[in-house]
């Protein structure tokens, strides 16, 4: 009984303290890959070449999944499903890292990946039910002068390090810094993640889920939102509107 209480307490607190969240409308996602490109451009993600990308080593932090239903001519492409780190409230990746390289941010309620603490056991990626972590299998180089594009706000990762979507934490911090210097709170919609900003269909909405007035909170209240693999108790912070 006591244990049960404790678990539910933990669950409640984690649920309540979710901070940043995302709503993705699969019905209007066209699968155009703009978010994937925007993410790569913003976050200094390496490209890996034809052979490695065909062998499950591509470093996309966000990928667009699509399946097929039925057979020709009744075949249907399922709604495009952008899959990225769900920034779980109870992340399965966090407890398994022996070096505390993937930890929960108390301030932002995000799953952090501390690149310089990572020793590369890859347990977190193995344990991620969403399979959204990308490992630096090699030192993928950017030939000069491509490196001029590197975003100075984002760490450049080297070989042997795990990485994943951060909800563009550099943008979160920048917005918070600016707001703080102006003595105000961050306004909903003041900034957004690279993927949401690029999305031509506006299928991605990002914002504070702990602010009931924010657009993302309003959207999350809609009845057709689902969270993936919620049954595992991961408390994901990305809500999907299924297609159709």
């Amino acid at each position, binding site marked *: 009984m006591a244990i049960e209480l404790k678990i539910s307490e933990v669950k409640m607190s984690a649920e309540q303290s979710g901070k940043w969240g995302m709503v993705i409308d699969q019905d209007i996602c066209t699968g155009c*890959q703009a978010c994937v490109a925007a993410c790569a451009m913003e976050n200094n993600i390496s490209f890996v070449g034809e052979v490695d990308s065909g062998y499950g080593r591509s470093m996309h932090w966000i990928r667009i999944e699509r399946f097929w239903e039925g057979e020709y001519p009744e075949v249907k492409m399922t709604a495009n499903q952008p899959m990225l780190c769900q920034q779980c409230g109870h992340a399965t990746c966090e407890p398994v890292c022996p070096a505390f390289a993937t930890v929960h941010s108390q301030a932002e309620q995000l799953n952090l990946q501390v690149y310089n603490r990572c020793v590369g056991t890859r347990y977190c990626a193995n344990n991620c039910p969403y399979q959204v972590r990308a490992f630096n299998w090699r030192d993928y180089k*950017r*030939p000069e002068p491509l*490196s*001029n*594009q590197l975003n100075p706000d984002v760490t450049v990762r080297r070989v042997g390090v795990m990485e994943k979507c951060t909800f563009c934490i550099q943008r979160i911090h920048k917005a918070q810094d600016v707001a703080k210097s102006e003595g105000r709170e961050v306004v909903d919609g003041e900034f957004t993640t690279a993927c949401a900003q690029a999305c*031509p269909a*506006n*299928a991605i909405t990002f914002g504070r889920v702990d602010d009931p007035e924010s657009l993302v909170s309003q959207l999350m209240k809609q009845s057709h939102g689902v969270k993936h693999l919620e049954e595992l108790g991961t408390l994901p912070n990305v809500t999907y509107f299924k297609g159709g």
Partner: protein
Amino acid sequence: MSNKFSRRDFLKLAGVGAATTAILTGCGPASRFVKREPYMQMPEYTYNGLSTYYATTCRECAAGCGLVVRTSQGRALKVEGNANNPLNLGKTCARGQATLQGLYNPNRVRGPIKHTRGERLYTADANPFQDEFADATPNMDWDAATQAVADALKNHKPEEIAFLMGMAPDHLFDLVTDLAAATGINAPVRFGALSMFESRATLSQAAENLFGHGGLPLFDVGGAEVVFSFGANFLETWLSPVSYTRGFAGLREAKTKQRGTFIQFESRMSSTAGKADEWMPIRPGTEAMVALAIGKLVSDARGITVPHAFSDVDPVVVASRSGIALATLQHLAGIFANSTAALAIPGGAALGQSNGLAVAEAVLALNALAENFGRHGGVFFSALAPNQTEYQRPASAREMQEFAQKMADGKFKVLFVHGVNPVFELPASLDFKNALKGVEQVISFATFPDETAFESDYVFPDHHSLESWGYQRVVTGPAQSVLSGAQPVVSPFYDTRATADVLIAAAQLAGGEFATALPFTDEVEFLRSKIAPLMEEKQSFFSAPDLNTFTAYFQQYGGWWKTSDGRRVPNTSNALGREMSPAEAKFAGEGEFFFVPFVSPTMAEAGANKPWLQELPDPTTTVMWNTWVEINPVTAEELGLLDDDIVKITSEAGVLEVPVYRYPAIRPDTIAIPFGQGHTAYSRYAEGRGKNPADLLGQHFNEAGDLAFAGMKVKIEKTGKQQPLSRLESIMGVYGVGLGEEK
């Protein structure tokens, strides 16, 4: 949204420093002197960690989306959409995002080069991951280069000088047009593979035939309730994908009406068709009759007299020819008839057939039946850009054929090429490469060492678009009349020079009427002369008392646009009275398979040199870094083909060997290959990668002169070779291959 904001609001928001409405800097011509400093050495005027944002225009395609580029220490770091620009409202496509990979491409042309035709401009097998500087070294200076251009202009008769230009940028096109008008040299010809695959000429010709007035139709997808698209891949590359995608989102998440219905008629499910509620795998060549049959059935359903346009068609015959059951046709007609805001869009492969014009007319006639012209969710003529008096369409493929013929016949002594790569983009059967041999002097202004630059005598590299001044007319998309402005966001990386500057300087050197035609000191002055008339316009997004301030605003906001709706309403009085032919398209070639080339949504015609575009999975197949041929699994089984088997595809024009992708959503009698790869030059990322389906295209045109690229039939043979395609998807998880569950 931007319309509601006053400038004061905007500046306030800009002060907040929000990323979506970033601080835009318009520092006038001074911004061309932005310095790139080492990160270790901090110039006094920058604060560590503070970025500068410049508004400019995307040139990855000709749509003219506004960009805001984040820069720091003189480096461009990130491209975002310009939230002010009414065309894209802050959004970008994947190609726009990857612009920087072009700017920083390791194989750019580094300076003016006198070049032997056919010689390489960079090392052949440069490792994609190494820092090898093996590019051709510039072997002349810009004075000599300018002199060479001046000599070329001055030493030839005007009719011996030709300009072949890309779809962007418009300011250079205007400059050359002015030059041509004043000196009598041939007017510049514009072309782009995208315009060829969009069948733009057909679209505007059909509009002219139906409405008695040419122009590029604008389809208000966002306002419609029901959208029937005949081959228009408007979510991928068609005309203006970002604004059409916004329209699609509007169709689906409609606030005031039901979720809109979208039906796509196409022999292969494109990623646009993948978003449709119903995909109609129509038999290629029957689009016109299907459109007409739907028109007839809609008329029947509405209980009105069948208009003359639809009277010649028998839905029963159509059903048997097109492969769409009569009941389905009636069902579709019912959807169309019962909607108060139905819209039909012709485009893409449907128009790239021998009867493409008839298809376009038939589909536009459906709109006449829906009476949606000029209505919310209907058809308009796109607003003309601010400095445009009528719609100027790019050259059709037939015009390009004529152009190439003139070249081969030695009619041109000098050819200037800018912003287009005809050797790659035109069908191999046109043999542009050989036609170039008929031209004495080919001067390329290519930024990248592309196939055409390889065949040139001089390469005088233009700046990359992010290092350039300019403007681009927005030909379609927004309701307003929009001119997107471009300014350099970084100082040029290499010893490149703006082609406009080269031409102006060369014209001065050439003297005579050349000098008087371009009486400018430089490109910026030319631009100001073009922008100045806009100051007089009413209903403008901003106004300024003097030209300096006006151009500063122009740069700061990333262009100029009106606040009023500039769309025109087609005259539909005669649209349904015309006779329309339900005849099927004719197909060239012997084979048993219809051949559908389509433009790769992520790569388009010029994306192959950007490594991250190469690594973006195709939206339908998730293949990266390569070309594939889509074959229905049933057909593949009959032919004994598995995934990754290389097949030999033979058309009347050529042969291509491509690995197979068993694609579940394509007609069994059709195969499809994406266009965008198969370069023989164009940097280490593009060269030798994949195949170019344009090699299979013969010279067949529709009535409007557009290439009948989807009007070929091809043969397939198994080669016994294999090449694994690099896919993001799991072939096991998605198709169940290798799970032990196959039949």
